[in-house]
C-alpha cells in the first residue's frame, strides 16, 4: 500500500476526532455585546488607549451594519446577544517555561497532535497556540528573535511593539470593510503577530493553531503578518473545535503586508466542527483574509483546504499594488452532509505587470452546497496585468450542489484574463477501473479525489499536505455508496 493509502486506511473509520472538550478552568465575560464588554476585554488585556478607541469606533460602526445576505448560504442567524465574547484559560498571563502551563491545556494540544514542547516538536515549525480567546504558548520565540523575527501572540505584540500594531492594524482590512470585520475589530481577543525584518528568510514554518473550547463562545482572532523588504515566510494555520449542538461563531481577520521583493505564503487547513450528519451544530466560519502586495515584485500566496464548518464565508484576497507583484489562491473546499460553503478570492490588480493565479477545487457530497465566488478586478493603471482562473467542481452523489460565481472587472485594455470552469461527477468508470485493479471503492474515491486536488496539495508544506489528505479521507468516508 502506498503512504497515502495507509493514511487513508488509518483514518477512514473515524468521524470528527477533534470533537472532545477539555476541562480547563476558564474566565469568561457575560454573554452579549455592549461598550462595557469591549472595555472589559480591553482592560483584561491591559491595552493601550489607542486600541480601546479603535475597538469602540469599530463597535459603533458595526451597530450601523447588517449581516450580509448575498452569500449562497442559508443558516439560522446568529444571536449576537447570546455569544460570550471573551473566554480565557485561567493562568498566569505570561509563561516563562512550559512547566508553568496548565497540564490539562498541554494535554489538549498533545491530543490534537500539537506539541508545545520545543524539544519534542518536529524541527522547522514554530507554533502559536490559541485557545478560545487567548494565545497560550508560542514556541521558538527566542531562536526566531535572534534573526530579528517577531513571532508572538497579538496581545504581547500590543505591549511589546505598539508602534507596529498602530501602524498596520486595520491597514489591509479596515473595520469599515464588512459586518464581520467590524465585529472582529471591536471584540478580537488574541491571535498571532509576525514581523519578518528586511532581507530575512524565516528558517522555519510559523504556525498558529486555533481551538475553540468553551461552550457558547465566539472566537474572534486577529492575525497580522508583516514581511519587510526582501523577506520570506511560510505561515500555517490549523483549527478544530469540540462537537456541540449549538452553532459557534468564528469571525477572524487576517492581514498580510508584503513589501518590495517579499514573499508570504499562507496555508490553512480548516477543520472546524461541521455539525452532525443532520446539519445540527457546527461552526459558522465568517472570516476576512486579505493581503496587500505593497512593493514591487512582492508576492502573496494563499492555500486553503476547507473541510470543516457548518457554514463558510471566506475570500482570502490579494491587493496587487506593487508593480510586478504576484497573487495566488489555491483552494480545496469540501462539503458533505448539510455543510454550506461560499468561498473564493478577490484579486485586485492595481500595479503594472501584476499577475494572479486562482485554482479552486470544490468537492460536494451529501446534501451540501459548495459555491466558488471570485472577483478579478483590473484597475485602469494595471497595464499588462494577467490573471488565470481555474474553477473545478466535483460532485459526489446527486443531492448536492456546486455553484460558480466569477466576477470580472477589466478597466485596462492590455490585461489578459482567462477563466476556465468545469463541473464533473466522479466517474463510475473511474471507480470500476480502480476496482478492477484490486482497489476497494473507498480507496478508489480517495485516490481519485486526491488526484483531483493534487494541484492544490502540491502548494502545501509537506506536513500539511499529509494532514490535508487525511482530512479529505475522513471527510469523504461513506460519501459514495
Amino acid at each position, binding site marked *: *500500500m502506498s503512504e497515502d*493509502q495507509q493514511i487513508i486506511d488509518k483514518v477512514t473509520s473515524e468521524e470528527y476526532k477533534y470533537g472532545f472538550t477539555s476541562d480547563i478552568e476558564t474566565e469568561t465575560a457575560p454573554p452579549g455585546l455592549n461598550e462595557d464588554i469591549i472595555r472589559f476585554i480591553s482592560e483584561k488585556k491591559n491595552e493601550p488607549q489607542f486600541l480601546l478607541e479603535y475597538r469602540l469606533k469599530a463597535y459603533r460602526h458595526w451597530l450601523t451594519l447588517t449581516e450580509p445576505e448575498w452569500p449562497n448560504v442559508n443558516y439560522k442567524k446568529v444571536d449576537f446577544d447570546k455569544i460570550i465574547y471573551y473566554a480565557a484559560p485561567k493562568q498566569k498571563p505570561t509563561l516563562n517555561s512550559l512547566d508553568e502551563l496548565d497540564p490539562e491545556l498541554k494535554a489538549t494540544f498533545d491530543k490534537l497532535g500539537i506539541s508545545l514542547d520545543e524539544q519534542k516538536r518536529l524541527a522547522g515549525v514554530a507554533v502559536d497556540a490559541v485557545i478560545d480567546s487567548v494565545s497560550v504558548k508560542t514556541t521558538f520565540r527566542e531562536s526566531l528573535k535572534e534573526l530579528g523575527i517577531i513571532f508572538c501572540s497579538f496581545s504581547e505584540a500590543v505591549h511589546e511593539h505598539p508602534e507596529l500594531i498602530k501602524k498596520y492594524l486595520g491597514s489591509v482590512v479596515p473595520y469599515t470593510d464588512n459586518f464581520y470585520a467590524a465585529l472582529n475589530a471591536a471584540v478580537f481577543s488574541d491571535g498571532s503577530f509576525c514581523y519578518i525584518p528586511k532581507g530575512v528568510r524565516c528558517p522555519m514554518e510559523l504556525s498558529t493553531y486555533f481551538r475553540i473550547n468553551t461552550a457558547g463562545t465566539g472566537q474572534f482572532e486577529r492575525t497580522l503578518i508583516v514581511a519587510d523588504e526582501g523577506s520570506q515566510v511560510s505561515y500555517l494555520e490549523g483549527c478544530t473545535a469540540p462537537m456541540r449542538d449549538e452553532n459557534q461563531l468564528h469571525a477572524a481577520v487576517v492581514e498580510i503586508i508584503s513589501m518590495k521583493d517579499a514573499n508570504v505564503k499562507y496555508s490553512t487547513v480548516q477543520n472546524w466542527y461541521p455539525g452532525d450528519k443532520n446539519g445540527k451544530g457546527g461552526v459558522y466560519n465568517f472570516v476576512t483574509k486579505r493581503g496587500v502586495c505593497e512593493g514591487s515584485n512582492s508576492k502573496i500566496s494563499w492555500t486553503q483546504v476547507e473541510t470543516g464548518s457548518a457554514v463558510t464565508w471566506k475570500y482570502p484576497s490579494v491587493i496587487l499594488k506593487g508593480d510586478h507583484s504576484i497573487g495566488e489562491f489555491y483552494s480545496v473546499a469540501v462539503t458533505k452532509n448539510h455543510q454550506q460553503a461560499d468561498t473564493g478570492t478577490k484579486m485586485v490588480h492595481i500595479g503594472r505587470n501584476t499577475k494572479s493565479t486562482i485554482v479552486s477545487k470544490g468537492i460536494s457530497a451529501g446534501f451540501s452546497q459548495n459555491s466558488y465566488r471570485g472577483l478579478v478586478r483590473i484597475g485602469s493603471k494595471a497595464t499588462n496585468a494577467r490573471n488565470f482562473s481555474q474553477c473545478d467542481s466535483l460532485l459526489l452523489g446527486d443531492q448536492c450542489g456546486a455553484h460558480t460565481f466569477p466576477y470580472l472587472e477589466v478597466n485596462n485594455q492590455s490585461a489578459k484574463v482567462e477563466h476556465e470552469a468545469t463541473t464533473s461527477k466522479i466517474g463510475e468508470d473511474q471507480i470500476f477501473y480502480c*476496482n478492477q485493479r484490486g482497489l476497494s471503492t473507498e480507496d478508489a474515491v480517495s485516490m481519485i479525489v486526491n488526484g483531483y486536488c493534487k494541484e492544490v496539495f502540491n502548494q502545501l508544506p509537506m506536513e500539511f499536505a499529509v494532514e490535508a489528505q487525511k482530512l479529505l479521507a475522513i471527510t469523504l468516508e461513506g460519501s459514495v455508496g
Partner: protein
Amino acid sequence: MITIKNLSASIEGKKILNGLNLEVKAGEIHAIMGPNGSGKSTLASVLAGREDYEVESGEVLFNGKDLLEMSPEERAREGLFLAFQYPVEIPGVSNANFLKSAVNEIRKHHQMPELDSKDFLKLMKEKMQLVELDKSLTTRAVNEGFSGGEKKRNEIFQMAMLNPILAILDETDSGLDIDALRIVANGVNKLKAENKAFIVITHYQRLLDYIVPDVVHVLNKGRIVKTGTKELALELEEKGYDWLKTESTSV
C-alpha cells in the same frame, strides 16, 4: 481455470448474453470473435463484475470459486485482469502510485508482504521493458493525455505488473498501428505460462497472427455458435460473419 455455464446477462432490460458456455483451462489462449453487438465486450464486463450488467442466470467458476459472488475488487485480487477497450483516465494520480496501491492490495490479499518503494521500482523497470513503455508514462497521471496506443500498452504493462492468472483482453488491438500491435502481442506472449490463461476478444483476425490462440470461438447473439482452431479465424476473415448468422439461426 474458468468455467462459464449457461450465462445470461442483460443491461437496462436488454438481454445481451443468452446462455453462454465456455471453459478455459490453464495454459490456454482462447480467442473470442464475433460481429458488432454479439456480446463480446459484455462478456468481458460481466466477468470483471461491472455493476451496470445484471446476471440473470448461469454460473461462473473461477479457480474453483464462485466468481459471480465476488465484488469486482475481489475478482481482481483473485487474479482476474481485464485490459479495457477504453482505458479510463485518472487525473492527478500517477501511474506508478496507482499501480503500487494495486500491486500491494493484491499481495495483501495473498498474505504476501507489501513491496517497498525500492522493490516496486525494480519490478516496474523490469515490466516496462516488456512492453517497451516509455519511462515518462509511469510518472504521468493514469492514462491522462496518453495516445490511443500508449493507453493500450499501459494496459498490458499493468497486466504484467499485477501478474494475473486469467487475463481478458477486450479489443486491445483496436486503434493500434502495426508496431504497437506487435509490442502488445509480444508482451502477452512473454507473459504466457502454464498456470495462466488468456481470453482475447477481437474483431479482427490480425491480432491472432501475433498471439496464436489454442481455441477460437465465435460469439453471436450472446452465445457461442462455433468453436474451432486458429483456422476458424482465417475462415471468418475471408467469409465475414454473415454465414454464421444464418447457420446459427437455423440450428
